[in-house]
């Protein structure tokens, strides 16, 4: 399936991504790159999970995060579902008074002029059982299509967020499909370049990966190895947290690992419903302890700095 479709300028996939970055940079966000580990959603990036907590009262960041959901793989055959996709994530702490206006501005920046559409904020309370996190907010609808998740975090790692961060999550593929007006994710124009000049569509870049990873996720991943990796990550996380000076960030890496390994095991169908709750509980415990260590470490570091400067 070769590239047959070129969208209007500025609305190809990579332009949408670049425009979102440019917009949020202008709003004072630190533009980060994706975290270099497999995660299920942009929320897992320590720039969100950990920075949502702690004494750092002002934190603004935006980044794209490749997200892996092994159970959503469809061997490249479903026009809407992928086991690997991109989320664009914004975290503003404290949530600004004009949060909604800022968000609507970002839609305008990527070719979705709010005045030309019907945009709605529809109740949707967000919860991540693995991160022990929840918040209130909406899913944002544009002409009946969910284009973003808009959340005022209340808790992360079971700890209260104070001040309260605003988290915005854009599902980039879905958003781009809407903007480009295509019905199949694989038809998305990635770069705005015609095929005869080497331009690529989503199919060109990701289809083979969807087929191969679906096959690995569902059929070939070695479950004994995954189980062992899960235990290893859990143990390592615990060990780092038990140090006299706990290493919150490396420990949290292991927590992310454990979470993704659980998702892989889930896709392989080796986790029963009862076990499922128990595994989620184990990851949540790691996340909570990492968050606690992060706050403790942050407090200690601040004290240390104070001493150094004083």
């Amino acid at each position, binding site marked *: 399936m070769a590239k047959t479709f070129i969208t209007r300028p500025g609305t190809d996939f990579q332009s949408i991504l670049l425009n979102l970055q440019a917009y949020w940079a202008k709003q004072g966000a630190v533009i980060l790159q994706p975290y270099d580990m497999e995660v299920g959603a942009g929320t897992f990036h320590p720039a969100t999970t950990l920075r949502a907590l702690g004494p750092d009262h002002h934190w603004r960041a935006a980044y794209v995060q490749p997200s892996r959901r092994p159970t959503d793989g469809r061997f490249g055959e479903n026009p809407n579902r992928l086991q690997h996709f991109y989320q664009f994530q914004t975290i503003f702490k*404290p*949530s600004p*008074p004009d949060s909604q206006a800022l968000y609507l501005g970002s839609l305008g920046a990527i070719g979705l002029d709010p005045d030309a*559409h019907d945009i*709605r*904020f529809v109740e949707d309370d967000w919860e991540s059982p693995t991160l022990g996190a929840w918040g209130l907010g909406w899913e944002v609808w544009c*002409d009946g299509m969910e284009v973003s998740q808009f959340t005022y975090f209340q808790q992360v790692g079971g700890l209260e967020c104070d001040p309260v961060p605003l988290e915005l999550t854009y599902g980039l593929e879905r958003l781009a499909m809407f903007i480009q007006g295509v019905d199949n994710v694989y038809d998305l124009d990635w770069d705005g370049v015609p095929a005869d000049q080497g331009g690529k569509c989503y199919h060109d870049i990701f289809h083979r990966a969807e087929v191969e990873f679906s096959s690995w996720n569902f059929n070939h991943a070695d479950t004994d190895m995954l189980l062992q990796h899960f235990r290893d990550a859990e143990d390592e996380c615990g060990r780092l947290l038990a140090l006299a000076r706990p290493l919150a960030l490396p420990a949290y890496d292991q927590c992310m690992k454990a979470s993704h390994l659980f998702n892989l095991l889930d896709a392989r169908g080796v986790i029963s419903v009862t076990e499922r709750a128990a595994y989620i509980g184990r990851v949540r415990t790691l996340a909570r302890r990492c968050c606690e260590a992060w706050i403790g470490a942050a407090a200690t570091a601040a004290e240390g700095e104070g001493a150094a400067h004083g």
Partner: protein
Amino acid sequence: MADLLIELICEEIPARMQMRAAQDLEKLVSGALNDAGLPHGSARHFVAPRHLAVYIDDVADRQEDVSEERRGPRADAPEQAIAGFLKSTGLARDALLEQDTPKGRFLFARIERKGSATTALLPDMITRILSDFPWPKSQRWGATRFRWVRPLHRVNVLFDGAALPGELDMGGGALAFSATSCGHYFEHGDDISLAGVASADDYVGRLRDGYVMVDRAERRAAIVDGASALVDGQGAKLRVNEGLIDEITGLVEWPHALFGRIEDGFMSLPDEVLEASIRVHQKYLTTEDEDGRLTPGFVVVSNRLADAARDDVILAGNQRVLRARLADAEFFWQEDRQAPLAEALPRLADIVFYEGLGSVHDKAARLAQLAAHIAPAIAGCDGAAAGEAARLAKADLVSGMVGEFPELQGIMGGYYAEAGGAPAAVASAIRDHYRPQGPADGLPATPEGLAVSLADKIDSLVGFFGVGAKPTGSKDPFALRRAALGVIRIILESQTRLPLRPVLAASAAAYGFAAVDDDLLAFIRERLRVSLRDRDAGSGSSIAHDVVAAALGDGMAEGSDDILFLAERADALAAFLGSDDGAGLVAGWRRAASILEAEEGKAKQSFAPATDPALFALPAETGLYEHLDSLSFSAKVLSRDELLSGMQALGTLRGPIDVFFDSVVVNDDDDKVRLNRLGLLAMVRDAMTRVADFTKLEG
């Protein structure tokens, strides 16, 4: 007197919370005014996604002045006592009066309290109401501690048309009261001044000018009218769903209905699948033809003013989203029917029904046994078909469609069974076995459906009670009250005679439990009691609580597990007590019962229902005895016929009992005669108790 307007502007309030919030606001403000001694006229509440307001007419300008005279200690009381009184009244010694009373000379304080101006009282009152507002769920935002349903941006307060100064403490910041509202987010960027607002209608009008219909009823009517007008033009009619219309009303400030089309190719999907995609997930109104069949049109209610070019974009976007949803559904519909339903059964072993109660696969096996056990009790029920339906009833839980649309469980199983060539009786029983899902839902349509539904509910009740997961107070996470009520409704509405003890025992045995939990039958009987007492006119008139108690009788007695019999007894008893004979008999029963109770109390023993005719001294004794003897009572009253004949027999007792009490003194000086008469009364009690527990009747 002056009017009061309080308006709160916040980010989008969840649709389901809006109506209640507006009612709460009105109730709280009006209550606070009353508590402060500020009379007022009528109130109206308003709510739109970002606006919440109350308008109260004719609020008093100030509290009444209060003058109070308080008596203190005696004039010659110790200094300490007087000092205490001065402190409590805030007066100086020379401001006190001395007066003679019949008890001596006392000090009096005259305290004058000037009423406060309403404008001075309002800021505190409003702040308190907002700080304790009963949102079902609330949040913090930014760096403040204050909680509201979503970030709160303005508190507008106008008294007599003028802005009222004040501020809301947000915990780490303050929000000053203002008098400036806002219009539609996208259609009216300018603020709306509320200064000089003169009436509720004036307020509504100002917001309407900013494209916000703040009157919920007006907005709802606009949605229904707009949608109906569009659909009428298409030769179809709106499929009215009140809950959905309510929800849409909470999602728009300015409704504008657009008519969209469903591609014909999707119309071969089952009606329920189309509904789930269109209504539940996209919140569109669906349309139907004269025969109630879904037609390929839908209405999306946008939140924008009409604009032909934009309307096209909005409609195209919505149709595209719907197409993707329906394509998903179509995919599942094709995919799920590739293999027979039975092939899905092994996968049910992976789904835990509940900790300690096995997998859903285990449940399906139990249901097949239990449905076969129940089938013979249900008129016209094919036991084999019921068993087969029970075995397959849960198989659709692992289908793609139910994974996507959980609300279609059962319904999809019915379709898939049909597609696999199962007999209609099996498919229909699978489809219906979750019914009735609530008071408004009907029963399964077939005898086999009734059997599987009963088996499913009884299995859940026995299982959850068996592992101690019983409902407590308002907590009923496994909807066991609804399950019990479902059992009761099925038995009563289908007139099924199904004594529950053996069925519960069979269910417990299928789990491998040693016995049925002791509380379960009492729990089901309690649901029966409540439903007989509260039932509405549609299913028979409600029955007074004491009559229900008399009919239900002792929970341990034979027949106490026969729901149909107990309900029949309640009906028959209510009818009997409504008759002259019944009312008279109860009067006689009371006299007999109270004499027996008193004498048995003294004697510390109960009297056997036996008497010796040889000891009768008066014709009234003989009359009552012979009448009792002539009545043909079954030893146990356990059927409807026995019940009716028993009631009829009791009715004839009234005369002899009345004659007996008119002419006989029970407590004769001769102890033998006395005890003999008490034995006769015990016979009356015994006869009556067989029919119902008359001790439960109240005066």
